[in-house]
């Protein structure tokens, strides 16, 4: 039996990691995979560092990903990729949003935001893709769609074919946001080519 594929979404509470992983899991279910997803609610959702984990394959037991076992880390905020880097497996992939959110610890001067995160990630992990997801989404008209841009990039990175992504997106986002999100997905998908 093949080992399940593990995807770790990391970001800041409120960035939409849960919706992106929801679209992914629904699509994987349609494709016939066993799939599990786990997420965190409550206190951490208030601007804290958050993770959502998705695992899929023939058979999945644990919804939690072990350190060193993530096939992909999708970072909605750059420095979060750094925080969770130990979860990445050898020859794993990083898809990171070219977007920084300073935590209060930094704005009040207690800590420093790291410099040159992109270069450091690229230097450390060969398969690092920095995506201008926030910018692309903002240009489309709503920065919130950055989550679906990143999802598009992830799907491209994993080469997940044979899924009607547009249909799944249409089903899971509000009607008036459907067109924008479909465009966002496409931009994300193409940004990796």
């Amino acid at each position, binding site marked *: 039996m093949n080992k399940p594929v593990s995807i770790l979404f990391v970001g800041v509470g409120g960035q939409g990691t849960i919706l992106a992983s929801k679209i992914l899991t629904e699509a994987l*279910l349609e494709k016939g995979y066993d799939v599990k997803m786990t997420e965190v609610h409550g206190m951490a959702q*208030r*601007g804290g560092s958050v993770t959502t984990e998705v695992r899929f394959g023939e058979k*999945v037991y644990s919804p939690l990903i072990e350190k060193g076992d993530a096939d992909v880390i999708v970072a909605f905020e750059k420095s979060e990729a750094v925080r969770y880097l130990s979860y990445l497996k050898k020859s794993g992939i990083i898809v990171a949003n070219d977007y920084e959110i300073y935590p209060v*610890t930094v704005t*009040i001067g207690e800590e420093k*935001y*790291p410099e040159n995160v992109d270069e450091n990630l690229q230097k*450390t992990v060969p398969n690092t893709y920095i995506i201008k997801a926030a910018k692309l989404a903002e240009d489309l008209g709503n920065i919130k769609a950055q989550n679906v841009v990143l999802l598009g990039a992830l799907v491209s990175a994993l080469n997940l074919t044979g899924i009607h992504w547009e249909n799944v997106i249409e089903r899971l986002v509000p009607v008036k946001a459907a067109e924008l999100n479909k465009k966002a997905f496409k931009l994300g998908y193409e940004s990796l080519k």
Partner: protein
Amino acid sequence: MKKIMSGNEAIARGAYEAGCHIASAYPGTPSTEILENFAKYDGVYAEWATNEKVALEVVSGASIGGARSFTTMKHVGLNVAADPLFTMAYEGVNGGLVVVTADDPGMHSSQNEQDNRLYAPHAKIAMVEPSDSQECKTFMKEAFKISEEFDTVVLFRSTTRVSHSKSIVELEDRIEVPIKEYTKNIKKYVMIPAHSKKKHYEVEERLEKLREYSNKSSLNKAEINDSKVGVVTSGISYQYAKEVLGDKVSYLKIGFSFPLPDKMIRDFSKKVDKLYVIEENEPYLENAIKVMGISCIGKEIIPICNELSPDIIRKAILGTHIDTPYTIDIKAPNRPPVLCPGCPHRGIFYAVSKYKDVIASGDIGCYTLGMMPPVSVTDTCICMGASISAGLGMEKARELADREGRVFSFIGDSTFFHSGITGLIDSIYNNIPIVTVILDNRTTGMTGHQENPGTGKTLQGKAAPAIDIEKVVLSLGIKKENIRLVDPYNLEETNKAVKEAHQAEEPFVIIAKQECALLKSARAKRAKTRCVIDAEKCKKCKACLKTGCPAINFKDNIVSIDENMCNGCSLCFQVCKFEAISKEGELNE
């Protein structure tokens, strides 16, 4: 039909399919979504109760009245509901009665890590423990059957990783179960000493019958693979163990976990050379197995504290770990949770932060974050409702010790209805001059926006009388001159109220009323309002940064406001002494 569902969605579905009629609960992470989902099904009654004790009493009455009923709560909620639980254990049920406790190992959003499995033997009621979403649904249906067959309350124990993980569930139709006849039976339903004495004997007999059932139950399963190593496990720990150890070892997976299947455990232990117990938090299974005289390895290698994970099991049982190939020279800054941009709690905490002699008694809700820098106001947080009562105690201690200071208690609207109101009555009755600040953000915020008795709407979307907190406070006996109703977005008004409260010598109440910035209605209203910093006028005094708003950045020696995060609450505008911040856009009324 197959669907991907969270454990909580599946628990709701299980209750629906089981023909359950009535549900009542108080929101609490990680349990909240169960009632939210159950409430959407046709033909059921679901309500938010004022607290978990009330909720369990509501469903106890519903059960006695013949309806299949259930309540849900987070682990600490069961402490609140423990009083009716222990006596309902004696009374038993008429319609099936299930109590769902969702524990929070790892304390993702909780104040302690108690393991509620220990409640089942203490209350002497049956317990089931699912390990994924499919089991959440199946076990819920079985729980109702067990409840009616054995005349017992059933404790349904989930955890964060069961409740908030999604996996595949096969849906079935609802079984329509008629509401049972109610017959007056005071020996069963009136627990006076004479009746309770007899009942206690019956409860002990019931446990023996449940133990026999446990040994035959399909919820308990032995998977025999290899005779060298056997693992006894339950809940999410089973999934982690299977992930790491696969089919190389044998398993006794316990789904019906009180009373434990003693014969099955004994038989299983004889079939393997070495017995491990893999369980999260307390050694619940392990202690029971050891009492049976069976030797096993458990908490020597599996920690009691924090959430369990496959890594921990791998290290403990196999002594190995997966390599982590990448290390990096830079470090991510700590990112603790904070009050959201535009959070109405910020204004009042900012105002109180100017008084260094304030002792701030906190409570459970987003506003626990009032302890975080830079406002750093909150001193204590114990449990739901404790802000006012603990504040009262601190005030008494302060007075007796002749210490300087002024006690402020901070409590949210929903928490006030939950159990703060009793503390306030105590402070009025005993005339303790504390300041109670009721943060009325028109919703139950932290758990994700549930209606409450003050919002004017029920769980199932019906209009309801909105209980007016100001009138409640007034009618309890707080003098009119000692009540201030303020908009925390208005700093001048808020500062004035805080100053007057600080000087008051009698019980004083400030109601800070402004809707949660994340509420749909608030977002629509403030969609176009923003605050903007004029870099030329900005003197970089950082006064705005001292509000702790995450929308305000200080980068490359420039203070700026993230326009995507800002909702124009204007607190920063009001603290800026150099008129460097301006308000833009109009409110959508």
